[in-house]
């Protein structure tokens, strides 16, 4: 695939979401969502709380099941069949708001476990990968400590390393900095900016507009379960078409 833009974005769609709806009982979380994300793209999803951002993200790796519609991830259609779900999850890394590190395992083991039991790598190989990733996220000295001895920012960086260790083609970020103290947000964003530059496909749910400006190719404004507006980052920032988008941006940027 030729690189048509200065960034790593290509023309083939790595995630295809078609007519997706999802309700929790009476509450409609997603209604008739259509979204195509291209390989190498950084897609930034924002919007008011309860607007369905996290649900949409969680549907992509099937932590939630859609009620209707179709999701295709890297050519694999998500169905209820266990094999396809595991297949998709192996391609998709996920970073959670609350990190969800495994508290009974040391940092190194947090990163090596899935490599060994899912990817079948040897202990040596997995350790090598893990140490390289810890170096990359800037905390090589923390390999032998337990997660509870880390700061929030460090925990989130370990969580990112843990997801990257599986060599995912897509990384999903579910409000990765929302649970962090202000002074730790930047260290996590820096790691994410690095990733964005390397060309991995990223879908980021966040309120960090600075990150969007710096790294996102496109932005999606999601409200009340519907996509209100999708646009190229600079255009959406400077010239939102929808009144609701403008209103929300004004609120969040002041």
């Amino acid at each position, binding site marked *: 695939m030729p690189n048509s833009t200065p960034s790593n974005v290509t023309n083939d769609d790595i995630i295809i979401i078609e007519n997706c709806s999802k309700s929790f009982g009476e509450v409609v979380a997603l209604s008739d969502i259509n979204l195509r994300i291209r390989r190498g793209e950084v897609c930034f999803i924002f919007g008011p709380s309860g607007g369905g951002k996290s649900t949409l993200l969680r549907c992509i*790796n099937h932590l939630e099941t859609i009620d209707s519609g179709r999701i295709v991830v890297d050519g694999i259609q998500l169905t209820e069949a266990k094999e396809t779900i595991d297949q998709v*999850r*192996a391609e*998709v890394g*996920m970073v959670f708001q609350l990190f969800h590190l*495994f*508290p009974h395992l040391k940092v190194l083991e947090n990163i090596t476990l*899935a490599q060994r039991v899912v*990817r079948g790598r040897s202990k040596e190989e997995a350790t090598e990968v893990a140490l390289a990733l810890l170096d990359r996220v800037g905390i090589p000295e923390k390999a032998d400590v337990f997660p509870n001895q880390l700061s929030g920012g460090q925990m989130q960086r370990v969580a990112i390393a843990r*997801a990257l260790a599986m060599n995912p083609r897509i990384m999903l970020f579910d409000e990765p900095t929302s649970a962090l103290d202000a002074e730790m947000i930047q260290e996590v964003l820096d790691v994410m900016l690095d990733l964005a530059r390397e060309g991995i496909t990223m879908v980021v749910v966040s309120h960090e507009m600075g990150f969007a400006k710096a790294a996102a190719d496109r932005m999606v404004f999601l409200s009340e379960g519907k996509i209100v507006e999708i646009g190229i980052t600079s255009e959406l920032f400077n010239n939102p078409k929808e009144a609701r988008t403008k209103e929300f941006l004004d609120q969040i940027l002041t």
Partner: protein
Amino acid sequence: MAVTTEVERKRPGMLPWVGDLSRLPWWIVVVAIVGGAAIFAIVTNRHWEAAYEFTKTGIRFTIILSITSFAIALVIGLLAGLGQLSSNMVFRNLSMLYVQVIRGIPIIVQLYFVAFVITPVAINLLNDLGGNMRLLIPLAGLGGALSRIHIRDIDMLYRAIAALTIAYGAFEAEVFRAGIESIQRGQMEAARSLGMSHLQAMRYIILPQAIRVVLPPLGNDFISMLKDSSLASILAIRELTHVGQLHRARTFRSWESLGVVAILYLVLTLSLSFLVKRMERRLAFAK
């Protein structure tokens, strides 16, 4: 440290004038005095000595009963605990049925039931099965063996172990279920999002954390099991309670017989609860 002491002193207690003495573990002192008195009695008094010599033979069966039953109950409990949380409707309902029914029947009734209803019925079924298998040449040997099993061949000890296992399996199922449920949902999601199967996530992520949560209640249940093994005396198994009763019936020395029984149980349970406390402290991994 000093600050704490100040606060402790100022707190008006029931006996303020006792001062620092109020913080001594007096209950241990009382236990020690009773224990010392018992040892003294056993060494110096021939009635107490006779009661002790006769009763101590029961310790062996009490321990065999408790350890065997509890070990098997742990396996059953884990399976039924996982079953209660299973998304498979059959497993879930079977586990629920087992736990709810068994927990609702007194253990003593279960002991009678297993010993005098389930065992004979099961043996009769095996006999019938063996009788039919004998007609098939390749299975004739096994069939013959099965058809020759007699109900009285099944020792009461095995029946008691089966009954206690079934009873405690239901308790431990609840312990395991609660332990697994206490682990944040995000742990499972994180494991699954890394591509682990449900089974792998359980094995590597959920259960290792749940074990730490359930060990203290399991330890306490083991102590309960040790005490409840006394119920097996109704099946004439020569465990502590039963031998104590035998001695009482033979000598009419109720005070000595039952006193020795109670003290021997206390020795076992107090040492166990000491071990459980130590285990709890060692496992308390910082969250």
